[in-house]
């Protein structure tokens, strides 16, 4: 039985994970939700009585899955009966691979397209509609129980987007490709038409844990609930999240209500709360509670409770001097408040060129490091075989990384085995050793990787030209990497193609973080500087529930900060607007009367 020391978990966390029945846990920001989840998994693993039962944990990202798995391994629990990953991996591994044979579209095999590949494909299908300004961004869609729904699509573009999608789906079908949404659609259909699938799976799973439930979509709830409902007496459920942070409604995510959850799963759920925020100051907590859309209690409980937070709002600064204002705020926090640059984050809307901002800031503040999006010179396509090799080639061997790198190495051998290569002569350890011994005299990143790949494949005795899947992955890896490097270079980022820069991708976070508003989900910093808080951006102009979406975004942004929060609604003009018109500060922000600090 897994046990923990008194100081490892607080009372709220303990109550939730020791509850005998199913739990719906509403966790406020900074309340140690991931820790509770991790300990709950470890506890349930230790309670497993049969070697034939599994614990299923669904996380929002692969990184989260990997981090939780590593933490559980460090807690000393055997993870061989734990399956943890995203809902898409879950559907693929547990339902589409074993049961796809009952689906005429899948029975001859299928390939899952990653988000980059489907974006690139959509882009090509958008080309004929370029005059109508249709791009892949307009084509985000979700499948629903009855059909499909478009994401951020202006009404005028709808007919074009529908055409694009029709062509895109036809192409996928003809080539036996499926994208992430099709994974969900096929899974849902299989579960619906073949009750025996849910019935069988329900006998295999002793516990189902779902993290970040507020970002879960209808079909995802349906799939998980069908399984639980097939055997409600023997499956435990632990569902965690924060309805106030439900910022992916545009992609169909929503926080399910307790009653609906109970009806769908045919199970009784006990609501629990984690209301102690150990992250932020009392002043900050008071501030962001204003943006709540779900009524829960949040109490300041951490060491920053009494910190005198500076919370500022700047609605005057002009776009042309926005970067100077950000530089000023950075300098203020670093030099006057003594805050480490590593603990500062700049967030902006995702349709602003954050990489350009990053680059300009680097020029203006040459003594500091910046971590921005789109700075990685190659696609983070975690399913690409060569990306997987990259992870090992571009990281340094160290005791702290050993478990992780061994896992990566095993994953590579598993992939090779699955495509039919004979790997009986080697081992994960041997592969890691080969990789550590690589000495390549080459400064260009891609050239370096080409040599590294060919040497490593040679050491495994694999000729990639013999395997269609490997050739495809190889070409796609280099094509998308070259494209990214070209794009970055066009934006003036010239040092990006060096191997030194490549290695940074996997280095520990170092420097000031620059992220999209959606990208800061789950993170925390001493200081958060947010800009672009403008109506039409926050919320997005096509959002039908703009008021709530804006609240949730502001809630997420504000609750990332431990100490200080700076918000900027810079003055800028609407794009494509003739005659020029100014954008306005986000309504939710303007409508909130708060004693902002001057700084």
């Amino acid at each position: 039985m897994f046990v923990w020391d008194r100081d490892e978990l607080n009372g709220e966390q303990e109550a939730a994970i020791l509850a005998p029945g199913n739990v719906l846990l509403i966790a406020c920001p900074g309340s140690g939700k991931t820790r509770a989840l991790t300990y709950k998994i470890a506890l349930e693993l230790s309670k497993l009585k049969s070697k034939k039962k599994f614990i299923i944990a669904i996380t929002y990202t692969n990184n989260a899955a990997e981090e939780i798995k590593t933490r559980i391994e460090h807690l000393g629990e055997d993870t061989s009966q734990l399956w943890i990953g995203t809902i898409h991996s879950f559907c693929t591994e547990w339902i589409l691979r074993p049961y796809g044979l009952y689906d005429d579209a899948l029975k001859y095999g299928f390939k899952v397209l990653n988000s980059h590949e489907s974006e690139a494909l959509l882009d090509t299908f958008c080309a004929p509609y370029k005059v109508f300004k249709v791009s892949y961004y307009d084509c985000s869609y979700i499948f629903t129980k009855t059909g499909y729904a478009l994401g951020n699509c202006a009404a005028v573009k709808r007919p074009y987007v529908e055409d694009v999608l029709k062509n895109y789906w036809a192409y996928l079908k003809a080539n036996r490709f499926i994208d992430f949404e099709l994974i969900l659609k096929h899974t849902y259909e299989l579960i619906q038409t073949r009750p025996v699938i849910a019935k069988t799976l329900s006998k295999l799973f002793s516990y189902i844990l779902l993290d970040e439930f507020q970002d879960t979509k209808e079909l995802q709830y349906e799939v998980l609930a069908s399984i639980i409902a097939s055997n409600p007496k023997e499956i435990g459920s632990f569902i965690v999240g924060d309805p106030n942070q439900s910022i992916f409604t545009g992609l169909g995510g929503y926080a399910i209500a307790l009653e609906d959850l109970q009806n769908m799963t045919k199970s009784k759920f006990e609501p629990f709360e984690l209301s102690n925020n150990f992250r932020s100051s009392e002043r900050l907590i008071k501030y962001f509670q204003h943006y709540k859309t779900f009524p829960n209690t949040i109490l300041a409980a951490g060491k920053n409770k009494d910190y005198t937070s500076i919370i500022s709002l700047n609605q005057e600064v002009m776009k042309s001097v926005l970067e100077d204002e950000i530089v000023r705020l950075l300098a203020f926090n670093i030099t006057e408040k003594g805050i480490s640059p590593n603990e500062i984050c700049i967030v902006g809307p995702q349709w602003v060129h954050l990489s350009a901002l990053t680059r300009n800031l680097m020029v203006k503040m040459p003594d500091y490091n910046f971590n921005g999006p789109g700075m990685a010179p190659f696609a983070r396509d975690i399913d690409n075989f060569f990306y997987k090799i990259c992870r090992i080639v571009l990281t340094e061997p160290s005791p702290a990384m050993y478990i992780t790198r061994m896992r990566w190495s095993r994953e590579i051998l598993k992939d090779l085995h699955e495509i039919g290569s004979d790997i009986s002569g080697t081992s994960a350890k041997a592969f890691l050793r080969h990789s550590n011994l690589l000495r390549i005299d080459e400064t260009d990143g891609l050239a370096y990787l080409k040599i590294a790949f060919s040497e490593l494949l040679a050491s495994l005795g694999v000729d990639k030209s013999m395997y269609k899947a490997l050739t495809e992955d190889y070409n796609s890896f280099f094509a998308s990497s070259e494209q990214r490097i070209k794009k970055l270079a066009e934006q003036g980022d010239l040092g990006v193609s060096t191997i030194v820069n490549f290695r940074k991708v996997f280095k520990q976070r170092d420097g000031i973080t620059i992220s999209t508003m959606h990208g800061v989900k789950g993170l925390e910093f001493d200081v958060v500087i947010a800009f672009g808080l403008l109506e039409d951006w926050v919320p997005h102009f096509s959002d039908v529930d703009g008021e709530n979406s804006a609240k949730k975004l502001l809630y997420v942004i504000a609750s990332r900060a431990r100490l200080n929060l700076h918000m900027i609604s810079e003055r800028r003009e609407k794009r494509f607007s003739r005659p020029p018109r100014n954008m306005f500060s986000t309504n939710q922000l303007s409508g909130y009367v708060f004693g902002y600090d001057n700084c």
Partner: protein
Amino acid sequence: MYISKISLVNYRNFKNAAFYFNKGINTIIGENGSGKTNLFRAIRLMLDDDLLKFAYKFTEADFNRTLDKKWKGHWIIISLEFSEISADESIQAMFIHGLGNGEEETVDKATYNLFFRPKSDIRYRLSELAENDTEGLAAIVDQLTIANYESFFTGKSSVDFNDPEVYKELVGDFDAVKFNLNPDTSLFGARIPHQLSISKDISFTFIKALRDVVSDFNNNRTNPLMSLLKIKSELINDADYAPIAHQVKDLNAAIEQLPDVQDVRENIKETIKDTVGETYSPSSLSIKSSVPDDAEKLLQSLKLFIGEPDETYEGSIHELSLGGANLIFLTLKLLEFKYQRSADNFANFLLIEEPEAHIHTHIQKTLFDNLNYEDTQIIYSTHSTFISESSNISNINILSKKVNYAESFQPANNLPESKVHKLQRYLDAVRSNLLFAKGVMLIEGDAEAILIPLMVKKVFGISLDELGISLINIGSTGFENIAQIFHEDRVQRKCSIVTDLDQAIADTTEIDTDTEAVKTYKKKLAASEKSGKERQEALDLYITGNIYLKACYADYTFEVDFMNQENKIEILNTIPEVYKEEDTIELAATDIGDEDIAISGKRVLAMAKYAKKGWYALILGKHITFKTNIPPYILDAIVFSKTTLSRRTILSLLDYRLSQYRKDAVHPEFLALELEMEKYGKGDIALQALIASIHKALPNDQIKDFLERL
């Protein structure tokens, strides 16, 4: 849950074979070399933890020999089908997840397949070939080695892998050069999820043929007693064991302190010092007693002592009789199986290879009548008739050896339940070796049973066994029950049916002058003829369309037809043993000599009846010589039921007859024939040419009639 079907394609001596099994006890019957061990090995590759690694280590020799050098590009397929699985039981969920053939609501079958196939790069290249591009195909497959192959497990398949069309669809059409890259998984199955480990889900025990049991007992790894003790030593209670461990330590100390042991130690030390000097001597030296105090090791030092039945002496295994040791070995293995059957397994399989070797026949039957564990499927291979008798005819698979491959038959396949019961009862009653036969001749009486083997032996110098024929006397039970086994669907072996037409030996037209007795006699003859005709019609209809059956009719009855075949000498010779009185003997001899069958036939039947049919056959048997003529309908039956005769066998028949002729001084030389025989032996001339030479040398000999029928 149980294994309901096994399909083997291109594996070892199976080109394409299907085996069907039921719950409980199943029997595999087959002669040596027919592939019983290969079948078991195929099952073990799939289910036995000890052999699983070999599922990844096939070699060229594992491909069926009919493929010869052309195995390259072909697949080996081993497919298991399981029945009676339940989706309601948690314990089977992983199994069903990986293998279950789910309908919408339920699952009742599961399949588990192993493909040994070219790796994906090769399959990709094959799929890219244009249709009919035989050169392209040759260019790819000629280069293949075993290193280009992989083992691939799938579950949930829905096709019959024994169907050649299925093989074409899955593997490819080598003639038309058509290869699929992505087979339809709904037909051929989906890859097994990596979480599933079937060998850990089930309990599986294999007991190999008992050939060298004593050496197995001497080897710790194969000693079944050790396995049992090991299982138990893991469960041993520490408190119970502590005092024993303590005593062992004391014991070791006491042994070490023995003065004699100390003496030896001192002597060693002194000798070393004397020979190499103080400088090079070891600094210390002691003799330690090492009786193990560890529970596992100590328990493993235990030995079994056994007394033979009705003896008072208890000895160790190697002192036991071979039969006794085998029995103990088998019993211990069965116990090990019982230990292994645990609550965590939902299926138990026990495979026993040829349990009869060296076990007394009486014990064999008892042993297997009593071997019946709940939730356990037992499959054993055997060539013992005693064991096969205790198995249900529906649970039998028969292996039949062919050149370079073997076939499998199920004797009760597609028979209605009622007929299976009848057949079962019949087989139980006659203790027949019917199921082991290569060819069968069914007869209806003791006379045929006694005389046919004798005639064949005397005339051809060979036994029916050597011709591969089992003679089955079905008495008066009718042929249908037995004959139905021999069928396209069931046992594909030849079976001839030998019966009498009972035609009247005299004119049955009644005339006014007939006495009452004559009238009755004529009526009886007519009635027999009529019923004989009816039987013939029914039998001809019964065998129509079945190439495995042939009816061979005696025109009258066996004795009459025998006599009519110029065998009057033999009959005449029996007269003094049948009758005692001179008058009767003389009369009988005159009757037999009569040309009219109404008279001679009536007499021979009267003699047979007088002496009781079976006894008369024994008497007649003494007078059979190599010159006795075998009635043609019996020759027909022999030729139909026999297996193919090699040139060597044919020559040995001929040699035998020549040697018999040489005993008669009149026939000293067959030089011309012998020369031809030599040519025939070398394969230089055909059988027809040999027959022509025989005709020249021995114009009227019946060997010619026999050979012409081949």
